[in-house]
């Protein structure tokens, strides 16, 4: 088990000493996924509210799209975004391929259906009768919507957490559209893959520990929300 002890010691030293390349990688990861999840939130929560609370033509179709989008393999998203941004592609003149904005786009496409679908589930878990109850006490449509979002708040936090979790661990799409350029588009997952393939386990383990820490926070959020959702079961 010497290999683990050595790598662990190396990795810890790097994190503590503030070795610039490791911390740069973490910063890029958080920056790219943070912007992507923020955009997913702005677009996904309103979409989720509409999907979860209204009945309209095309709603079923949109739910199918959101659910399919959640199951979409990230490498497929990466492929399509790469083709769109490639020199010969329709947006080639923007010269975005192998840049952080390209990664944000790919991650947004991956996170958006997750945020929308989980928000929709959270909103539709607010009983229809609770909304009717608000109406019957005099709430306007707007006040009713506000009450619904307030009741679903834990679920909306879960939606954002799930969206973040889906992109921070992802490796295929970011490689394809980001290119894994050191200091520019290299993120935690792509770096872990690269360090591992080079046999450089120290920095790989250090980054893995940081990544797992982030994922753990997300999971704790999701679990606490699940148990509070059961409250409506009564």
């Amino acid at each position, binding site marked *: 088990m010497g290999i683990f002890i050595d790598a662990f010691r190396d990795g810890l030293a790097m994190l503590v000493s503030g070795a610039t390349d490791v911390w740069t990688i973490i910063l890029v990861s958080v920056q790219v996924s943070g912007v992507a999840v923020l955009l997913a939130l702005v677009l996904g929560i309103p979409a989720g509210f509409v999907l979860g609370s209204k009945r309209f033509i095309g709603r079923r179709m949109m739910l199918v799209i959101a659910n399919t989008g959640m199951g979409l393999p990230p490498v497929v998203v990466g492929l399509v975004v790469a083709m769109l941004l490639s020199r010969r592609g329709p947006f080639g003149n923007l010269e975005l391929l192998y840049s952080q904005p390209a990664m944000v786009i790919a991650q947004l496409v991956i996170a958006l259906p997750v945020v929308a679908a989980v928000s929709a589930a959270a909103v539709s878990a607010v*009983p229809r*009768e*609770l909304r*009717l*109850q*608000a*109406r*019957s*006490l*005099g*709430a*306007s449509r707007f*006040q009713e919507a506000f*009450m619904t979002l*307030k*009741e679903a708040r834990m679920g909306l936090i879960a939606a954002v957490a799930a969206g973040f979790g889906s992109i921070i661990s992802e490796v295929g799409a970011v490689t394809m559209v980001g290119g894994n350029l050191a200091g520019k588009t290299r993120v935690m997952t792509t770096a872990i893959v690269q360090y591992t393939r080079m046999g450089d386990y120290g920095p790989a383990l250090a980054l893995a520990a940081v990544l797992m820490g982030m994922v753990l926070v997300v999971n704790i959020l999701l679990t606490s929300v699940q148990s509070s959702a059961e*409250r409506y079961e*009564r």
Partner: protein
Amino acid sequence: MNPAAITVEGVLRSFRGKTAVDVERLELRPGRTLALLGPSGSGKSTLLSIIGLLERPDTGRVLLDGAVVTPRDTAARLSMAAAFQRPYLFKGTIADNVAYGLRLRRVPASRVAALVSESLARVGLPGWESRSALTLSGGEAQRVALARAIVLEPRVLLLDEPLASLDPLMKWRLARDFDSILRQSSITTLYVTHDQDEALTVADDVAIMREGRVVASGPVDEVFGLPVDEWTAGFLGMEPAIRGRVVEVADGVAGIDCDGVMLYAVAAVKPGEAVALGVRPEDVLLFEADVEIPISSARNHFEATVTEIVASGATFRVVIERGSVRIAARISRASLADLKLAVGVPVRALFKATAVRVAST
């Protein structure tokens, strides 16, 4: 009499081609409680939604104090409040819940606290303001839901099966409390229920619904005293009305010939009139057929034959017949044994003239 608080006129509502509500006319009289009674699926809740301006009818209109109102009339909507079968409470404290409608009405915060605590006291939960709304028992939660509605002092209060989810003990305690709260506040109330005992406990008036239509309505005693048709009778657990013709009227007591049996009733009818009449099973006493009936205030007594005996809770329901006259009597276990009642046994029935309900036909 005062004009109606709510009038429903020619209201029709259907879902997927099936008629859910088809009500020609229904009135809620101010300050009184109207029970909307019917089996599940009879359109009670849909009618409540329409009256409460939560849903629009396909055709027809709802009048509040004589003026036509729709779900778009914010002022009209703000003059109503509802509580449902399950006490859907919002996350937060009990005070947050009770204050919800007040906040929507922009009542100053300084008054909100006083109104909330007064209203909680009225429903029997004084000082419960700061408890969480999600940790209450069913009965407590339903009290909070009622407080949340009555704190608004609505012109019309809508209650949709508010006791149906509670266990029987809690149900009866709460039914009585609701009754006294509604009576004190004299709020006009629409009370939807499928349970006739509940309706009898809380209501002044009753309307019976069947397949979207109101088949009978009026003061509780009238509607329960004389079911208008076989279906209503069956639903109320009674025998359908007996048909007869008035042959004499003396001192306000009418003598009515029912297929050869003379029945006496206190009623404003004229000789020659065709009438329907009914007696509640609780008011009918049975004796052995050969017993000499002593002098009593009961004007009606005749011999008949037992045709049906059914256990019904703590008592028995005994149906007796003579010709086309068919009457049910509610009898205790002890009496059933003492009288040795069985199908085919002759008995003597006794009931007062005041116990007979009469309607012209």
